[in-house]
C-alpha cells in the first residue's frame, strides 16, 4: 500500500539520464577489464609455452657465396652442435608440415609449393637452471654455420609482458576514471535532488526523521539507478565482446590473438553492476549526510 520513497526522486530527470550515463561508464569499464583479462591470459599462455624454449633459424646460404653446402647438412651441423652442449635438453628441426602451417596465415596455402628461400627452424628446449643462454649457443653455432641465428623467446616475451603491464595500468586508469566520474555524477544528482526536494526533506525532519532516514531515501534511489545502469552497460559490453570474439576467430584473422576469458573473469565482469550500485549507494548516503549536517 505504501510507496517505498517519501521523497519523489523517481520523477526527477536524473532517474531518466543517470542509468544511461552509468551504463556508458560501466561499458567502458567492462571493456577495460575484458581487455586486461584477455591480454593477461595470452601472456600466461605464452609464458608457459615459451619458458626454456629457443628457436634456431638456419637460413639458406647467401646467393653468390662459395658455400655450396646443402640445407640438410647445415641443419644437421647445427643440430650436432646443439646436442653436444650441456643444458640443451632437446633440439629438433621443425617439420615441413608445421612450417607450412605457421606460414599459411601469412603466405596462404601455396607457401609449400612456392620456391622461396625460407630458413629451416630448429626448436630447442633448454634446462633453465643450467645457465645456457641464447648468446652462448650463438657463440657455439656461429663458427660452424655462420649465418644461423639463435632466437631467445624470453626477450620477445619480456617485451610483450611490458605491453601487458602497460595495458593493465591503462585499464586501472580507465577504471579509476570511470569510478571517479560515477562518484561525481552521483554527488551532483544527489545534491540536485536535495535542492529540488528541500521542502519534503524539511517536512521529514519536522516530523522527527533522522538524517539517516532521509539518506536512506536517496541511497535506495541511487542503488536502483546504479544497478540499472550497470546492467545496461554490462549488456552492451557482453554484446560487443561477443561480436569481437566472432571477428577474432574468423579463419582469415589468425594473425590476431584469440581473446578468451576464463569463467572467473566473466564473473568479475558480472560484478561490475553490483560494484557500481554499491558505489552509487555509498556516494549518495555520504553526500546526503554531509549536506544535511552542514545545513544547521
Amino acid at each position, binding site marked *: *500500500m505504501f510507496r517505498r520513497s517519501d521523497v519523489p526522486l523517481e520523477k526527477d530527470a536524473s532517474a531518466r539520464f543517470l542509468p544511461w550515463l552509468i551504463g556508458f561508464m560501466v561499458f567502458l569499464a567492462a571493456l577495460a577489464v575484458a581487455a586486461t583479462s584477455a591480454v593477461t591470459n595470452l601472456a600466461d599462455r605464452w609464458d608457459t609455452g615459451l619458458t626454456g624454449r629457443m628457436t634456431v633459424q638456419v637460413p639458406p646460404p647467401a646467393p653468390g657465396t662459395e658455400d655450396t653446402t646443402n640445407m640438410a647438412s647445415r641443419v644437421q651441423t647445427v643440430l650436432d652442435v646443439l646436442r653436444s652442449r650441456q643444458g640443451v635438453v632437446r633440439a629438433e628441426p621443425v617439420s615441413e608440415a608445421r612450417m607450412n602451417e605457421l606460414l599459411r596465415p601469412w603466405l596462404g596455402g601455396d607457401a609449400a609449393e612456392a620456391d622461396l628461400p625460407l630458413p629451416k627452424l630448429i626448436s630447442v628446449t633448454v634446462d633453465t637452471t643450467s645457465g645456457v643462454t641464447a648468446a652462448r649457443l650463438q657463440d657455439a653455432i656461429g663458427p660452424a654455420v655462420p649465418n644461423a641465428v639463435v632466437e631467445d623467446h624470453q626477450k620477445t616475451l619480456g617485451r610483450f609482458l611490458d605491453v601487458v603491464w602497460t595495458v593493465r595500468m591503462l585499464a586501472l586508469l580507465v577504471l579509476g576514471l570511470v569510478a571517479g566520474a560515477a562518484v561525481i555524477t552521483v554527488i551532483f544528482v544527489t545534491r540536485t535532488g536535495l535542492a529540488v526536494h528541500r*521542502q519534503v526533506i524539511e517536512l*521529514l*525532519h519536522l*516530523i522527527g526523521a*533522522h538524517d539517516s532516514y532521509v539518506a536512506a531515501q536517496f541511497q535506495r534511489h541511487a542503488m536502483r539507478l546504479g544497478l540499472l545502469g550497470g546492467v545496461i552497460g554490462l549488456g552492451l559490453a557482453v554484446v560487443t565482446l561477443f561480436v569481437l570474439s566472432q571477428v577474432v576467430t574468423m579463419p582469415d584473422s589468425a594473425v590476431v590473438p584469440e581473446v578468451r576469458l576464463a569463467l572467473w573473469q566473466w564473473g568479475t565482469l558480472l560484478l561490475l553492476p553490483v560494484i557500481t550500485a554499491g558505489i552509487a549507494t555509498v556516494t549518495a548516503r555520504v553526500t546526503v549526510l554531509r549536506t544535511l*549536517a552542514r545545513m*544547521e
Partner: protein
Amino acid sequence: MVRFDKVSLRYGAAAPVLDDLSFHLEPGSFHFILGASGAGKSSLLQLMYLWQRPSEGRISLFGRDTRELNRHDKALMRRRIGVVFQDFRLLDHLTTLENVALPLRVAGRNRPSLDEHTAELLSWVGLGDHLHNYPPTLSGGQQQRVAIARAVIARPSLLLADEPTGNVDDRLALRLLYLFEELNKMGTTVVIATHNEALAERFRQPMIRLTGGDAPLPGDRRRTAKARQ
C-alpha cells in the same frame, strides 16, 4: 513542558520579531496564541518545534535546554511534538493514508498496525472515504483535516497548530477545536496560534497575546511581539 526565558528572535539585522518573551506551559495545558498577522505567532511556534533558534534567551522543552540538543536529539524530540502547519505541508505524491502515516513510518513503526490505526483516525476526522486520494484532489478543509490527522497520529505530548481553522467554515472550525480539546483531555499539551479571537474565547482557555505585526498597537511602532499571559 515548554519554558521560554527572555527569548528574542530576529531575522538578520532587522528588528526582533519576538522580544524578551518569558512564559511557562504546564504539561496537559491548553493555550491559544493570539495576535494580528505578522505578530510573530508562526515564529513562536517555529521556536517550539525547533525550526528556529532564539537570538537571545533560553527555551526548555520536556525539561531539556534546547541549546544542548544535537541533530539526533532534536529528531527524537520532534517525534513528541505534533505540528499542524498553516500551509498544511502535505506531500502531493502520497495518498491521504500515506501522508497521515508518515510520522509513524519515520518512527519505524511496522506497516500492518500503521494501516489500521491511520484509517481509523481518518474516519474519525471524516475522511474515511478519501484514504487513497491525493492531496491536490482534496478541498482546503479536507487537506487541513489530513494535516491535523498527521499531527496527532503518533499521540504527541505537545501539539502545535498554526491557524488550524483558517481554511474551514465556523462549524468545522469548532469541530476541529473540540478535537484538540479531546486530545488535551487525554493528556496532550495543546498550543493553537490563531487570529480568530472570538473563536478562541469560546473555549475559555489561557491565551498568550502577541502585540505588534501589521496592525501595530498605538504607540508601538516596532514590529515587536511581547507576550501577555
